[in-house]
């Protein structure tokens, strides 16, 4: 490496060299000196006279005995000033580069090989949503079908659908698989709640493969779709046709059920429904006793919770259907949870059942946008059950309306994930997060209270968004700091727009009182956004960002405080020095004792964790808890990391908007930051950390009092981890394979 001549006096030339070429410490210091030189002012110390004693018996103290005391610099950053430009130190080949392409091709080849060997489970674990279509494009029809069918069986409909679609794309080459692919595409759409598309696909099966076995199942599915919408006559017609179908003989159960449902609907139409009881006792005849305790439905009709009990030691129950007016849904008993009911011991005994039998039944169903039927006032529902011995009965209960809230969604997760952390229904999880997302996006459309305290700057350089939850006092510590910082920096400071988002309606009064206090005491102007309901981490940040005006955005946790005067400024200047080149910029976060809380995140897998957590990618903070001094290379360059935490993350506001802000699919909160960084990486932009921008992060203090139990917390974490993994597992593998060799 040739030594760069130090005769280069031109600062711009020096900057350019250092930005583009290899960096050398002494040259950085030289550049820094010349940047600082203009800012410093010299002033000599002033000696002061000291009065001495007059009497000769006393020794007088000399006037020159002024001891100078040496203060430590207020900003204890010996080294590069924030205005000195620093280069980006790349660590991974960016998406879109030829190396990245090569890695992708390798990955696809690996997955393809696994598919050919029919190692579907292994493939599914490593199949991120971004590679499904590229992989499908490479697979021959049979392989794509095989994998797609496996995915369908695992309820991974969002994977099955594109795979089946790729089989269809092969046209006649697919041969025998075509009708089946068409069927499963339709059924997958149905599973995803895309009713319209499901119908389309299923009708194609009927149209193009009329007497094929697949068309039987398509017709059954369509019949059920008709029943869902209350189109009885269409369903009846379908049943007629089905009875004629060659496959009828092998699927008597399906036909039987449809027949029963239709006749029950007729019966219900003809007879007074309110005569039906919510309980039935068939102990003597069939050994079954059942009752509905309650049926709760959210007013929008999207979440249904059925709670009751079923004493059925002989396992007679075969089918369960829900009837609302003229609509019928077939319930999935496999998604039911069974709970102990000690109060039913006597009933159990009567039915000849074991005392340990879990008789309590809890079933949750989520209807997505196209499927949901809002609740009507005073509405009641019937539960139609068919037993193995052919008998059936009907129970009825008035619907209880419920508001859709976080606890309801958590209840769904409770069903989707069973102890310790095993995913039993991928579809239920999918629906839960879709529901959460739909709900969140809907809430974000609503107008919200927005208060200004003081006059915000007209042309802010940076908008800071801080969500508040569980505790609001952190706002004061931050505003106190901003006030002091403003006074020290004077008019040359960067102009900031501070936006606090209260995501906790319980604390509204306290927050407003504190805001008033802060407005009186601290000169920093700020804004307060008051969410009428808790939206979670993504919602709160996205909402705050909607009010941001500056070109740059900083997401900041309430329990993060700058450690030095220039912590924020460093990040700001770094972003301004590399416009359009940085995806997201994180910081070095310390615990209160100075140990590392975050200096970049890494994706790891921890096989010894329970259940799902043992096989998904998790976000790790390397060196967390360890005291590590700042390395030279860390302060001279902006280092690329796998991901950075949103506790303190700066990015271009337009970019944030372009990718839709933080993802709305993570329930309550978690993984949004790595999700964001991976999205940015997909656009070819790196996640970096500015190690010289140092903050304190009093982690977990911002959550305050959490209501959920440990078990539920774990399930929420697992749910989000699985979501994250399903989206990004392939991207993460490729990331790890893309390290730039030095």
């Amino acid at each position, binding site marked *: 490496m040739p030594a760069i001549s130090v005769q280069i006096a031109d600062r711009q030339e020096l900057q350019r060299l250092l930005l583009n070429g290899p960096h050398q410490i002494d040259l950085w210091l030289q550049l820094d000196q010349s940047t600082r030189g203009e800012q410093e002012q010299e002033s000599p*110390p002033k000696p002061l006279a000291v009065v001495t004693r007059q009497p000769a018996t006393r020794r007088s*103290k000399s006037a020159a*005995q002024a*001891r100078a*005391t040496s203060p430590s610099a207020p900003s204890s950053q010996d080294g590069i000033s924030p205005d000195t430009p620093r280069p980006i130190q790349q660590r991974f080949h960016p998406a879109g580069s030829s190396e990245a392409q090569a890695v992708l091709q390798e990955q696809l080849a690996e997955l393809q090989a696994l598919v050919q060997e029919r190692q579907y489970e292994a493939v599914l674990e490593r199949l991120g949503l971004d590679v499904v279509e590229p992989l499908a494009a490479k697979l021959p029809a049979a392989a794509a079908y095989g994998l797609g069918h496996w995915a369908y069986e695992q309820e991974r409909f969002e994977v099955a659908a594109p795979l089946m679609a790729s089989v269809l794309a092969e046209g006649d080459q697919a041969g025998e698989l075509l009708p089946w692919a068409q069927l499963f595409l339709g059924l997958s759409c149905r599973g995803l709640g895309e009713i319209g598309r499901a119908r389309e696909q299923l009708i194609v099966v009927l149209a193009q493969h009329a007497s094929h076995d697949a068309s039987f199942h398509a017709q059954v599915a369509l019949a059920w779709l008709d029943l869902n919408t209350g189109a009885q006559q269409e369903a009846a017609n379908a049943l007629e046709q089905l009875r004629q179908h060659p496959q009828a003989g092998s699927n008597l159960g399906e036909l039987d059920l449809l027949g029963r449902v239709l006749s029950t609907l007729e019966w219900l139409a003809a007879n007074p429904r309110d005569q039906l009881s919510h309980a039935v006792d068939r102990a003597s005849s069939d050994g079954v006793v059942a009752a509905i305790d309650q049926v709760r439905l959210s007013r929008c009709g999207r979440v249904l919770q059925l709670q009751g009990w079923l004493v059925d030691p002989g396992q007679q129950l075969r089918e369960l259907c829900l009837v609302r007016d003229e609509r019928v849904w077939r319930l999935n008993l496999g998604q039911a949870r069974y709970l102990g009911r000690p109060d039913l011991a006597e009933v159990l005994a009567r039915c000849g059942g074991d005392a340990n039998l879990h008789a309590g039944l809890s079933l949750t169903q989520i209807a997505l946008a196209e499927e949901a039927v809002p609740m009507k006032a005073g509405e009641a529902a019937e539960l139609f059950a068919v037993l193995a011995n052919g008998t059936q009965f009907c129970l009825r209960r008035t619907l209880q309306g419920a508001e859709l809230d976080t606890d309801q969604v958590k209840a769904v997760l409770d069903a989707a994930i069973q102890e310790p952390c095993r995913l039993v229904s991928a579809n239920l999880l999918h629906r839960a997060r879709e529901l959460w997302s739909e709900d969140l996006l809907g809430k974000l459309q609503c107008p919200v209270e927005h208060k200004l305290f003081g006059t915000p700057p007209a042309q802010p350089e940076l908008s800071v968004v801080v969500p508040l939850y569980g505790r609001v006092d952190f706002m004061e510590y931050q505003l106190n700091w901003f006030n002091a910082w403003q006074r*020290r920096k004077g008019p040359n400071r960067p102009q900031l727009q501070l936006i606090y988002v209260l995501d906790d309606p319980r604390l509204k009064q306290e927050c407003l009182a504190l805001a008033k206090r802060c407005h009186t*005491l601290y000169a920093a102007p700020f804004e307060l956004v008051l969410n009428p309901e808790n939206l979670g981490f993504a919602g709160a940040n996205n909402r705050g960002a909607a009010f941001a005006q500056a070109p740059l955005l900083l997401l900041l946790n309430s329990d993060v405080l700058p450690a030095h005067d220039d912590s924020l400024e460093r990040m700001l200047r770094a972003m301004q020095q590399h416009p359009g080149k940085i995806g997201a910029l994180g910081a070095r976060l310390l615990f209160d004792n100075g140990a590392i809380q975050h200096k970049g995140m890494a994706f790891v897998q921890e096989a010894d964790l329970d259940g799902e957590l043992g096989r998904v990618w998790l976000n790790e903070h390397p060196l967390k808890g360890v005291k590590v001094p700042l390395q030279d290379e860390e302060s001279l360059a902006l280092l690329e990391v796998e991901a950075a935490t949103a506790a303190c993350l700066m990015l271009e506001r337009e970019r944030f908007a372009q990718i839709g802000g933080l993802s709305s699919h993570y329930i309550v909160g978690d993984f949004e930051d790595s999700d964001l960084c991976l999205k940015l990486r997909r656009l070819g932009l790196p996640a970096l950390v500015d190690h010289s921008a140092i903050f304190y992060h009093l982690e977990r203090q911002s959550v305050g009092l959490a209501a959920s139990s440990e078990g539920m917390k774990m399930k929420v974490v697992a749910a989000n981890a699985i979501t994250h993994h399903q989206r990004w597992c392939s991207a993460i593998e490729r990331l790890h394979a893309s390290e730039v060799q030095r």
Partner: protein
Amino acid sequence: MRVLYLVHGHEQFSVGGAENAAFSLFREAQNNPEIETWILAAVHTSKAVLAHGELRSVEGTDREYLIGTSCEWFRFTNAHIPSLKRGLQRLLEHIQPEIIHLQHYVHFGIDVIPLLQSLCPDAKIIVTLHEYLALCMHNGQMVTTGQLKLCEKATPLACSMCFPEHNTSSLFLRHHYIKTILESCDALISPSQFLIDRYRSCGIDHPKFLMIENGLPGYFDFNQQNDISSGYSDELNRFGYFGQLNTYKGVLLLLKAAYLLQEKGIRNFVVNLYGANLENQPDEFQKEFALFHEKVRDLVHIRGSYRQSELGTLMLETDWVVVPSIWWENSPVVIQEALFYGRPVIGSNIGGTAEKTEGQGGVTFTARSENSLAGVMQKAIGNTALHQALTLQIPMPATAADCAATHIALYHEVVSTGAIAQEVLA
């Protein structure tokens, strides 16, 4: 230049070093024709004299004011800012100070500083630190709860051990809050270098963190001084202790040292305890005090409290001034007084006591060690050579006038917002 002083108690109601320093400065600075001073003293609302934020001027003068206020003692924040703001606003609009100098922030609350900054954006705020409350919740003394061990460094972890009801995060935030506000001031002053170093090592610093020694109040008579400063006894065996009789000032240590000497058969000395307040001390302390005093009652005499004006007379009865504090101290006024009257100081070798004793005509002993104190006392009795050598070293303490002049020079600096290097003024 208009200067407003804030102090946490009026000298008429409460006695203490900080109150004296504040009022002394207030009066001395007034003597300067360029300066106009006012003083605002906090009256705690519990005294039921003034409501929170209620402003009242002191009779007979238009320069002294009182304001009712109270603050909580964890973070020193105000109970109710709006009422305090109204009272302050009225006074500040009238005075329009260019300098606001706080001698203490307790009772006012440390959040009075940002309040003042927002009410008077052009005024410069200066704080004199008399104790370590910003660092230490235990009465600002940096001594552990329970064991009363000396604490070298305040950290969230260490403090949470002294105060287990607060977790490290709360203590971190407390420190952050107070530190941020102090560092937002325009200058910080301390009467000892020790305090400055201690604050620095615990993370609170300021580009203008200056040491300015407390000046002796104006009534110290220079005419008398010469007479008194030659009035030593021939035996040089009279030890004087000036101050409250409590644990922290170390009077118990002095009793024990006297007892040790007595046991060794040395009885040719006398110890005079000038001070009171024994009856307000915890029972344990009173018991131990009584126990030891009983043993040495021929040698140690409790002379009771005294008025400042009597100090000269009492110094005539003293050859050595003992300052056996068991805590760090800042700049004990008694040492300045001893310097004025030419009495060598025998002081603990820690903190501010050591700083003001060593090299200033005093001798130190190992803090908290009665053995060490006894040894020094033994050496001191009748030791003409030592006494003479020490008295030659004793510097002239700063007078109130000196002190005021130094402060005024600082005020000018701060107002002209120039950067100055740190200085030490003795």
